[in-house]
């Protein structure tokens, strides 16, 4: 056969551009990971394999503190945002349109629509006033700020799960003499669980990765891992940054894969 024939789905050059895209997307990340194992100090010249930058990051007091701070903030924010999101999802899903619904949706989705820098500046202004008035400069500012922008990320998967649930199961439970709270605990919550877990993981990753809002809200000496890295980028970069990045990257990848699996089970 002279030719392979005409392929309806093929458009000339598209596969090439797509492949370029995938290479473009992954090559920098792969290089970043590879150089985190570089024995030399360069992020460009390979001098052999070594764990030294992971060790040096581990021993770096600044990194240790930033890591602990990042984890405290991300875990607290994920817990608070997810709890608030579950309650909000229960209130706004599977019911008739109520007064103020549009406003509520706009409020919940606000962090997705307003540019981060605008929210960051607004929080800087607001919290600066409170800091002056109360004298408190602790981590609560960051935790509350993170909780706020994590709410929509936790809310969306939980709401999606709730919408896909069979209402008749709850009616059956109510018919069998379960009080509303028992219905929630014994029927609704067990079914909602994967959605809650997915929402919590998303919130955790989003909080862990945030740079802009943290950079503006943090008080002196309150660096998280991302803001610490942002500060380091102004100096000569060593593969220590690559090592930290690689660890953060792994957490994100694992979370995304777990999230994908969790949201798939609903079918």
């Amino acid at each position, binding site marked *: *056969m002279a030719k392979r024939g005409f392929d309806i789905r093929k458009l000339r050059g598209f596969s090439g551009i797509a492949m370029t895209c995938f290479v473009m997307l992954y090559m920098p990340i792969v290089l970043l990971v590879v150089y985190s194992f570089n024995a030399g100090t360069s992020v460009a010249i390979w001098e052999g394999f070594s764990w030294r930058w992971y060790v040096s990051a581990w021993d770096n007091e600044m990194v240790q503190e930033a890591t602990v701070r990042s984890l405290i903030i991300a875990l607290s924010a994920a817990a608070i945002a997810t709890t608030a999101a579950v309650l909000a999802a229960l209130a706004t899903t599977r019911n008739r349109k109520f007064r103020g619904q549009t406003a509520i949706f706009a409020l919940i989705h606000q962090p997705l629509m307003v540019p981060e820098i605008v929210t960051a500046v607004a929080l800087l202004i607001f919290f600066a006033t409170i800091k002056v008035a109360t004298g408190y400069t602790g981590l609560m500012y960051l935790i509350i700020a993170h909780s706020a922008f994590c709410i929509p990320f936790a809310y969306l998967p939980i709401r999606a799960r709730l919408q896909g649930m069979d209402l008749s199961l709850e009616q059956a439970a109510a018919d069998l003499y379960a009080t509303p709270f028992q219905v929630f605990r014994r029927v609704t919550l067990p079914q909602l669980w994967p959605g809650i877990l997915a929402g919590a993981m998303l919130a955790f990753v989003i909080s862990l990765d945030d740079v802009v809002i943290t950079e503006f809200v943090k008080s002196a000496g309150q660096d998280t891992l991302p803001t610490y890295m942002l500060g380091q980028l102004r100096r000569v970069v060593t593969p220590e940054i690559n090592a930290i990045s690689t660890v953060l990257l792994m957490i994100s990848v694992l979370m995304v894969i777990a999230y994908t699996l969790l949201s798939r089970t609903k079918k």
Partner: protein
Amino acid sequence: MTKAITAQSLRKVYPGNPPVEALASIDVEIQDNEFFTLLGPSGCGKTTLLRLIAGFEHPTSGKLDMFGESLLDAPPYKRPINTVFQNYALFPHMTVAENIAFGLQMLGTPKASVNATVGEMMELVQMSHLADRQTGQISGGQQQRVALARALAPRPKILLLDEPLSALDFKLRKQMQLELKRLQTETGITFIFVTHDQEEALTMSDRIAVMSNGAIRQIGRPREIYDRPADRFVADFIGDTNFLPAEVISNSGEVTRLRLSSGQEVDAHARDGAQGKVTLALRPEHAELTDDGAGLLAGTLREVVYFGTDTHFHVTLDDGSDFVLRRQNSPADGNDFATGDRVGLTFPAGAAQVLRD
């Protein structure tokens, strides 16, 4: 007569595990100006053959010519062949008129000429009053007409129709059958029509190719296919058929002398020198009921079902097999046979057909 389409050893295998052979070495010739129908159950390969001719698929091996020249290297947009798709595939973002104009525009036809042809086509299918409607706002029957006008507008040499009537209701389908036949005669374009509806095929076609399992079982005029089915599949797929076991006694040309299970002898039609044990096909309306002992076969009448235009008699033959006989009703007819009666069956010489194995 010139040949519009010639396929030689045309074969199509879809890769996979296991690979699927959609067409197993097909040979077919379709004449110019012909209404040719590909008939068969779903999965028989008829749509695959149509898609090979349209150019949406490429054969695994074999030859495919149009008017003596190979089609295989031409992409679909260079083939003067248009398709009426099963689901019509009308462009939802265009109006009725824009849909019909599309092919002509792509061919680079001057604007004035495009408009004239579009007007003509809309008149031909009686859609002029809906020219500016979106295609989502018209009925299924109207969509069908638009799809037809769109495919005819570029004046193709061959028109392919992929079960175009299957989505229409019964009455509309009958009406469109006649209209399609009229359009084919008027335009003189070769129509290749795919359907699984045997009645549709018999009504409209000049010739029919009956397909199953990726192979063509028989090609012929509707009458030939119905009266002289080549094999058991064709006899079974088209119309109702009684199958009778028989043994060949002698053979001369197209006439074969047979002995039936009852021991009686009869002449039947055979395609080639059949020998030994064979199967006979006999249409229900070709047999007649007689008194017990008077016919070629004997049995017991099990059931009489009245259908208005005709009556069906279900008989259990003495060899244990079932036989259905159909008789047209007339006012003079009395109810001369009753359930449980012993009856005889007879049929004229030549009415039965010896089937290929």
